[in-house]
């Protein structure tokens, strides 16, 4: 197959679009796990966010209200996770899985009850979605060879949330490594006792970290249902929360590497869309199923240790129990 610049740009542009929810969820995971709380409920929070955004946007006709509802939903689920695993020192994985299961079922039940469409929400008009925006000057320089094409086709033309994802990565880095809150957050994920003896509340810090995670997954969920798509469909997050978790680990709990591994997963998915039906020399037509399984196979391969040992925050997954 021949790849023109145009093809390449469209694959890369799709990569960015497909990576966006992963980036939000991966940054949420970084906040949560850097503070010592394993957050497997990223998946459930994405899905709940997607449902809340689509429902509220359908009822009110406002994408922004949808976004707000999704953020609140994400935060509410974070509080549930925190109540079980921070306040009551429960097992963080169990609490996370419970949230995923509840959300998977509850979104369908509520969808049927509210919209009577077999769990789907009504298809939204453009006015109730986040639509792609043209960056200034995109038309003007579109005729400039190469650079102009890159600007118009790759950089411009995404929706607002895509750009927000990039801002989030920078913001995450800045918060974690340049602020007092970030220093304490990283410390509490490594050695909560040190934080406690320094006179800082471990629980309150962890709650704040997972609430930030709730906000970010809410935005990610919004993107899935009312930016990337025009309605909510059942289980539409399709494991992206787990893939984000894998990307976060592959990125060693650091914002920029995590973003890059989100791109890797996004790229693979974009490629798989592109490759469907394409005849590859010597192999013939690659089965669609195999191509679609690509990102998931990559997840397993990466996590199986092909990338060198990923060192998690030391207290990750360990509830902090203070003797009294």
């Amino acid at each position: 197959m021949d790849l023109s610049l145009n093809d390449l740009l469209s694959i890369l542009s799709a990569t960015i679009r497909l990576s966006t929810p992963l980036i939000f969820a991966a940054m949420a995971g970084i906040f949560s796990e850097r503070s010592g709380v394993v957050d497997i409920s990223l998946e459930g929070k994405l899905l709940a966010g997607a449902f809340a955004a689509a429902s509220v946007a359908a009822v009110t006709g406002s994408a922004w209200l949808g976004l707000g509802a999704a953020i609140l939903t994400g935060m509410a689920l974070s509080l549930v996770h925190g109540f079980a695993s921070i306040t009551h020192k429960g097992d963080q994985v169990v609490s996370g899985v419970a949230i995923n299961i509840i959300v998977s079922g509850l979104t369908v039940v509520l969808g049927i009850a509210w919209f009577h469409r077999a769990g789907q929400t009504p298809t939204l008009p453009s006015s109730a979605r986040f639509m792609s925006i043209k960056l200034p000057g995109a038309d003007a320089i579109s005729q400039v060879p190469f650079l102009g094409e890159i600007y118009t086709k790759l950089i411009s033309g995404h929706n607002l949330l895509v750009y927000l994802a990039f801002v989030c990565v920078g913001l995450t880095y800045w918060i974690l490594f340049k602020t007092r809150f970030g220093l304490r957050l990283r410390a509490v994920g490594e050695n909560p006792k040190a934080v406690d003896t320094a006179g800082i509340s471990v629980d309150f810090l962890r709650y704040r970290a997972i609430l930030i995670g709730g906000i970010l997954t809410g935005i990610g969920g919004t993107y899935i249902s009312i930016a990337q798509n025009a309605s909510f469909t059942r289980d539409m997050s399709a494991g992206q929360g787990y893939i984000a978790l894998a990307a976060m680990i592959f990125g060693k709990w650091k914002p920029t590497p995590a973003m890059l591994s989100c791109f890797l997963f996004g790229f693979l998915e974009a490629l798989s869309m592109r490759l469907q039906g394409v005849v590859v020399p010597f192999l013939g037509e690659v089965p669609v199923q195999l191509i679609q399984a690509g990102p998931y196979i990559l997840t397993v391969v990466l996590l199986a240790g092909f990338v060198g040992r990923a060192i998690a925050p030391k207290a990750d997954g360990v509830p902090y129990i203070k003797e009294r």
Partner: protein
Amino acid sequence: MSDVAIELKGISKSFGSVQANKNVDLKIYKGTIHGVVGENGAGKSTLMSILYGFYEADSGEIYVDGKETAIHNSTDAIRAGIGMVHQHFMLVENFTVLENIILGAESGMMLSHSIAKAKSEVKKLEQNYGLYIDLNARIDTIPVGQQQRVETIKALYRGAKVLILDEPTGVLTPQEAEQLFDILRALKKQGTTIVIITHKLREIMNLTDNVSVMRNGEIVANLKTSQTSKEELAELMVGRSIRMEIDKSPAKPGEILLEVKKLGLTDAHGVRRLDNLNFNVRAGEIVGVAGVSGNGQGELLEVLAGMRTCTEGEVKISSVAITPSLATNPKKIREAGIAHVPEDRLKRGLIPQFSASESSILGYHNSPAYNGMILTKTGAIRRHCVDIMERFDVRPQNPDIKSANFSGGNQQKLILAREMDRSPKVLLVGQPTRGVDIGAIEFIHKQIVAMRDEGSAVLLVSGELDELLSLSNRIIVMFDGKIVGEVDAKDADEKSLGLMMTNSHEGASV
């Protein structure tokens, strides 16, 4: 203003049914160094944790500078000017020294400002007290002595007027400990009040002004250090008189039972753990191995116990030969009459979740004495456990209690009992009295000497120089995987061993 920095009145604290502190009254005078001594479990650490707000007392009052002060958490303690150097350092290992110092005492939302401020403040501390430290080093790359210094700086940076140190010298070499004492004396001179918790009486004698002795959660004596003695303190701690010296007849070394030739070990990362070791141990003698922990003593024990295969050289131990090509395993080693008391008793000596009777046969669990055709002989195992508990004075004498619920000393006695019960030809012992209280130490020492007298060859690895000096016939000193010296215990003292352990004659300074 009063001359009392801290006063505790009627402090009581219990954990479940265990009363850790009973109605404790304590006065600590300003600008003094006050020692708190007691056996493990006497309640020293609990008392200090209450003062630092890590625990809350069930009853009682705390007066700081003459004013009653409520200390609910560490924040309150820090605000009251109390700082603590914990026994297990409260440091974030993958942070730099500077990040650890400012954690929780930042000056503003942004780190850049805190960092600039901390740098200049720490410079002052360095100059005033000789607390030198590389601020940009990561905690996990600096030695424990330096890590402890970071803890001290952390406390002072938060404006501590009273500094509590919990067992500060447990992890230090004698030279590092001496440096720490110099720093503490400098702090005292500038008006800081210091409370030091320890069970090492020598340190109490040469450092403190006043000393309080705790036993069973109570303070049993408050003394002026200048008016007491080690012997008196030891007696007060245990509640009966204690012999500081071990009574032993001269050794009668016999045939060589353990012979090590050119032994070398390179680990998976290519690091030389053991390098060209040569020594032997004869029947009826105790050979001590001294060294700062992490200089190959642990690996040596592992190779001899069959837990690890050496990469060079050969070992003849009882009837077994160990070479790189002739790998062995702990089972073969045990069958050849070699017993091993591991350094880390909770990880390797017993299984904390198992009952005492189950732990009492570990390593010998395949013996027909404990096994029927299909089932284990529970009755025989329990009887065996009760029997060795009786002979080795393990308390409580109940084979059904979880191993984890015995005190450190009694766990250690149980392990020693298990290993000594079969009169081994060679006995490998690692850190027999680490975290064990004085009463039990005396008993354990007697047992080790008794094994020697029965004709066992004993190899004793220990971080306690007192112990090595009083038990061993010869002492070999390890540094960086090599043997850097072998001395007769009669001719050695702490100072000369300490210098060898740090290889200081080569000008190494910490």
